[in-house]
């Protein structure tokens, strides 16, 4: 048998030699020296004598061997047999001696080592892991002392707009984490401006579930675009931070201190900001976690802000990470002065009205909050998490407003001058407990979750208004004109409770069934009183028409079931909430009770498929019952804006929305190129829409109703390609987004207005960067087509935008950079003039010290002084142009000191 194999092998090896040539061959018999017994299966190897390169080999059959078709030359025969000493012999084959015997000769081997060229390797830049897109920080060169913000700007698909909002592939990033944990709550600004780029190993972007969905385990179909900043192992222990102080003309100043101490088990961080440049400590992503009122009184780019804020963060793990705590305390004060004017055209079926208004206000707010979260493993199978927060907010504001409404022909309709001064105090608390238990059977889990929140707010409001109506000829109608001078104290209390439990049972290795239920009970009280001034000058005459006192309750229960299949290639999930809601609204003044019941349905499905390592698709559907709000059913009666009044509609029914999404991703690591393609579509049945009735006096009355027979729907599509031209490190990221509002509806004076719109946008960003320079250029063109059946003229808007930035390191550690944005909006039927604006910022400075961590910079913001605070908006309902007081050109000279010291982790290095 072995012999036959050997012959086959032999024949095969020899088959390359032409048969016509001389057959150089050897043969022989191998035997045991003492016993003369033939050795079966001995290995016969023929090598070239010169370098002992293997030519052919064969195993003996009953001791005999025969090798044909050898190459002529000096050869070496080697015979081996287990546990026998090797036999080697040199021999020569040539034309004279095609068959040879062998002599007793040994050959010394020389090994030749090869010198290799050591070649540098390039790192892979992006990896798709499940639905996560992971960026390798090392693939993107940043300047020394750069922050996460600078790194994010380099990532394909990532954009940071002027107000600091991070947009990834056309969608806003809402949450940011460090190593999967919250850092200063989940305020992105405190990570992007604080954490150093050189500490980051990876940036992960994914669609997370909402906090409630994650804790309750019940998928509500909502997605929270999240960035997780993964730190490098060797930068998890250290101290870092920065101090920044700047002073400018026009009394501008900015100061910032951030200090952090990280270790693998503990993070301590502290920050403080003060500025009136509108650039720091503002617009942070403070979310609703801290309760109502916290998001009020924030700065949205309009007005002149003075901000002072600060905070402390601490998190720690101990006892083999079985317990952990995460706490944040933040406080902040913000003053904003606003001044502005606006002109609006209000569409009517018969034409339009014009509204001109001017306003000014000053507001001050002070807020603070404390958040703490504790997580513990009760045993190897169960965990308990509890968290609590407490927030207070105090604010005051004074505002003046003057609004005039005219007929389209210029005849005066009404004029309202108001003055408002208010004080607002609110306090809210939140408590949550979450229990999870696993069982011996993998995949079997049980969880319970409960939360309670309380909010109490008090407002004192002094309101004055002088409202004048004019008749058809533009003469003052003194009969209907109203003067108001009232004190309006109000308070609002809410108490929300939520609880659920959920059980998951694995049906098979990859299939799991979950079921559970949840319930919530929300109770609120809104009390608002109005007092007129009496002769004594005190506000002591109640105005019963504008007194409100409502108690609302909303009790909801849901049964939940979900089925989920997950394998490496495919994940499929379906789930449904089925339940009911009972709302009651009690008018404590009129002593009437309004009770309503709804049934709730929230089916959803999602599908994930991995085609290959490089490409994935996601598809999802989410259907949801949306109950009308109390303010749509029965709003508070108010007289603070008598020109715009909302009345309730107790006959409102819930609407049901259907949303579909599709997402396709492909990334080729080889060429660092990829495609992202996303489509969303949704339609609503029984949609709740507004009806605006504008009467002859120019008063707008709004009421909500269900739309019958029509389904408002809209869709959008986003396609992004990215890659490098051949042989270049230039990054091109062309992307197209198209969104269509196939039909949205509203009523204007009881006439249905159907609105269609299409938005096309093409964007071409180009980037080039290395350690010493970076350039980027973005070209954007957009076209919006709007049509509404009540509009006489189509309102199409064309525009383009050019963005660019440049940074260069100069000799002697000097550096220079610019950031520019040019916008152009073409004239159209509504706005007859084109609008263009060029915002240019430039900076120049020098870095000092070995680590270049001391920096003096002179920055000129809005060098061309074109930030006019002008903006335009248009809907089918109205068109508005507004002008606001904003921060204009200023120069700032600042000194920045970055400090960092990272420890080394103790791990012995082997050579």
């Amino acid at each position, binding site marked *: *048998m*072995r012999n036959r*194999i050997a012959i*086959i092998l032999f024949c*095969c*090896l020899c088959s390359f030699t032409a048969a016509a040539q001389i057959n150089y061959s050897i043969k022989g018999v191998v035997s*045991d020296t*003492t*016993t003369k017994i033939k*050795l079966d*299966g001995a*290995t016969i*190897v023929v*090598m070239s004598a010169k370098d*002992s*390169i*293997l030519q052919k080999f064969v*195993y003996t059959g009953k*001791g005999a061997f025969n090798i044909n078709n050898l190459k002529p030359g000096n050869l070496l025969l*080697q015979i*081996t*047999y*287990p*546990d026998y000493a090797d036999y*080697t012999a040199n021999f020569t084959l040539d034309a004279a001696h095609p068959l040879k015997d062998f002599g007793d000769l040994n050959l010394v*081997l020389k*090994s030749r080592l*090869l010198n*290799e*060229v*050591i*070649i*540098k*390797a*390039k*790192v*892979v830049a992006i*990896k798709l892991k499940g639905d996560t897109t992971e960026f*390798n920080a*090392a693939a993107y*060169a940043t300047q020394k002392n750069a922050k996460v913000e600078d790194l994010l700007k380099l990532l394909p698909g990532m954009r940071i707009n002027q107000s600091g909002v991070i947009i990834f592939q056309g969608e806003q990033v809402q949450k940011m984490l460090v190593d999967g944990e919250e850092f200063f709550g989940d305020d992105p600004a405190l990570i992007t401006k604080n954490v150093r780029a*050189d500490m980051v*190993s*990876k940036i992960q972007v994914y669609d997370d579930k909402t906090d409630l969905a994650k804790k309750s385990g019940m998928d509500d179909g909502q997605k929270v675009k999240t960035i997780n900043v993964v730190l490098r*192992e*060797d930068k998890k222990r250290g101290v870092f931070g920065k101090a920044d102080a700047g002073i400018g003309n026009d009394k501008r100043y900015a100061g910032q201190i951030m200090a952090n101490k990280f270790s693998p088990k503990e993070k301590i961080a502290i920050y403080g900001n003060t500025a009136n440049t509108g650039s720091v400590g503002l617009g942070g992503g403070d979310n609703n976690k801290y309760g109502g009122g916290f998001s009020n009184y924030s700065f949205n780019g309009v007005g002149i802000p003075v901000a002072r804020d600060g905070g402390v963060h601490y998190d720690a793990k101990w006892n083999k990470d079985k317990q952990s705590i995460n706490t944040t305390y933040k406080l902040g004060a913000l003053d904003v002065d606003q001044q502005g004017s606006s002109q609006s055209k209000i569409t009517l079926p018969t034409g339009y009205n014009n509204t001109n208004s001017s306003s000014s206000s000053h507001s001050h707010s002070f807020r603070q909050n404390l958040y703490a979260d504790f997580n513990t493993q009760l045993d190897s199978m169960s965990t308990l998490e509890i968290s609590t927060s407490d927030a207070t907010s105090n604010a005051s504001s004074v505002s003046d407003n003057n609004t005039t409404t005219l007929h389209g022909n210029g005849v005066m309709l009404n004029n309202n001058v108001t003055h408002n001064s208010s004080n607002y105090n609110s306090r809210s608390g939140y408590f949550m407990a979450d229990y999870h238990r696993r069982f011996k059977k993998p995949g079997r889990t049980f969880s319970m979750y409960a939360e309670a929140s309380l909010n109490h707010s008090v407002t004192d409001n002094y309101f004055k208004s002088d409202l004048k109506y004019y008749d058809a000829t533009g003469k003052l109608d003194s009969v209907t004109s109203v003067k108001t001078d009232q004190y309006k104290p109000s308070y609002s209390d809410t108490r929300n409770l939520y609880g659920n439990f959920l059980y998951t049972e694995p049906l098979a290795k990859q299939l799991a069934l979950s079921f559970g239920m949840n319930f919530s009970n929300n109770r609120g009280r809104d009390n608002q009183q109005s007092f007129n001034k009496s002769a004594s000058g005190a506000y002591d005459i109640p105005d019963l028409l504008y007194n409100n006192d409502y108690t609302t309750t909303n009790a909801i229960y849901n049964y939940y079931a979900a089925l989920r299949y997950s394998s490496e290639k495919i994940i499929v999930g379906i789930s449904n909430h089925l339940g009911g809601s009972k709302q009651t609204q009690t008018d404590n003044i009129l002593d009437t009770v309004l009770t309503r019941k709804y049934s709730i349905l929230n089916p959803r499905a999602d599908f994930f498929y991995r085609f*290959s*390592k*490089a*490409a994935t698709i996601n598809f999802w559907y989410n259907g949801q019952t949306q109950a009308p709000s109390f303010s749509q059913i029965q709003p508070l009666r108010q007289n603070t804006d008598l020109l715009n009044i909302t009345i309730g509609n107790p006959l409102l029914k819930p609407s049901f929305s259907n949303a579909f999404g599709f997402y396709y991703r492909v990334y080729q*690591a*080889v*060429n660092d190129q990829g495609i992202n393609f996303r489509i969303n579509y949704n339609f609503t049945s029984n949609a709740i829409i507004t009806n605006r009735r504008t009467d002859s006096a120019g008063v707008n009355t709004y009421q909500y109703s269900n739309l019958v027979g029509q389904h408002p729907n809209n869709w959008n599509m986003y396609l992004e390609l990215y890659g490098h031209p*051949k042989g270049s490190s230039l990054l091109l990221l062309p992307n197209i987004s198209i969104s269509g509002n196939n039909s949205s509806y509203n009523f204007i004076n009881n006439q249905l207005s159907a609105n269609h719109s299409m938005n096309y946008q093409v964007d071409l960003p180009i980037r080039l960067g290395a*350690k010493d320079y970076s350039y980027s250029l973005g070209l954007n063109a957009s076209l919006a087509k709007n049509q509404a059946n009540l509009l006489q003229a189509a309102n199409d808007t064309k525009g383009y935008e050019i963005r660019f930035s440049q940074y260069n390191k100069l000799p002697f550690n000097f550096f220079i950079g610019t950031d520019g944005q040019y916008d152009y909006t073409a004239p159209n039927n509504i706005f007859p003039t084109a609008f263009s604006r060029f915002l240019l910022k430039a900076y120049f400075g020098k870095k000092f010290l070995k680590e270049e961590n001391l920096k003096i910079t002179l920055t000129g913001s809005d060098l061309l002084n074109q930030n006019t605070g002008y903006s335009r908006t248009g809907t089918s309902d109205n068109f508005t142009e507004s002008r606001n007081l904003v921060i204009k050109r200023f120069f700032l000279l600042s000194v920045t000191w970055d400090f960092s010291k990272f420890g*080394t*982790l103790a*791990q012995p*290095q*082997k050579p």
Partner: protein
Amino acid sequence: MTAMKNLVRTILLFIALHSGLAFAQSKQFITGGTIEFEKTQNMFAIMKNKVTKDNASNKDYYEQYLKNEPQFLTYKSTLIFNANSSLFTPIPGKSIQWYYDAPIANQLNTVYSDFTHGTTTTQKEFYEHTYLIKDTLRKIKWKITDETQTVAGYTCRRANGLVLDSVYVVAFYADDIHASGGPESFTGLPGMILKLSLPYEHVIWVATKVNPAAVDDKKLVAPKKGIVVDYKQMLKVLTDAQGRWGEVGRYFIRGFSL
């Protein structure tokens, strides 16, 4: 255990030789079975291979790796074989952080070798693509030495080789196993390769267990999935994809080719 086996074998052999008993020729050669390989890679050295003057970021990663990660990583694979063919299959192991990664640090190939026809069918993972290389068995210039070593209880002879015209290979093959195979696509020696090292690539395969029980021939089938190419076309794919990296890509191309 192994030492014990060796001792027994040596004693038996001693008796056989000196007593003149004739059972030496009845030595059973192995012509089929299953071999478990363990691949050990020196990540410190592999990481260092990626560092050069003009790639500072890799230096950071190298230093970071030195501090935090183990020097050696091991991966398992199996080779089933009979006298005519073998099938080498990697067993997926702990994945390496991709920024530390290099092709040589991965087990990219499922290799079917047909010794009878001198052909191979190799399934190769190249990033997101899977290729199926159908070609003759890879030509390796083997130089036989007289140095021996015991691996997994078998006496192995050292052979030094040159693969891809430039990569230095050291193999230890067992005369006792009459199949011309080895880990990955290293074949062509007059016995099974039980230990193979690529000294300049800093990886080594060592057989941890040899089970001489014959395997079911039905299991010895070539992989079928992938884009069919030959070695030349595969090299073109690699060069086209990574040639853009210039010098940078060569280390990776070599790693992918091995």
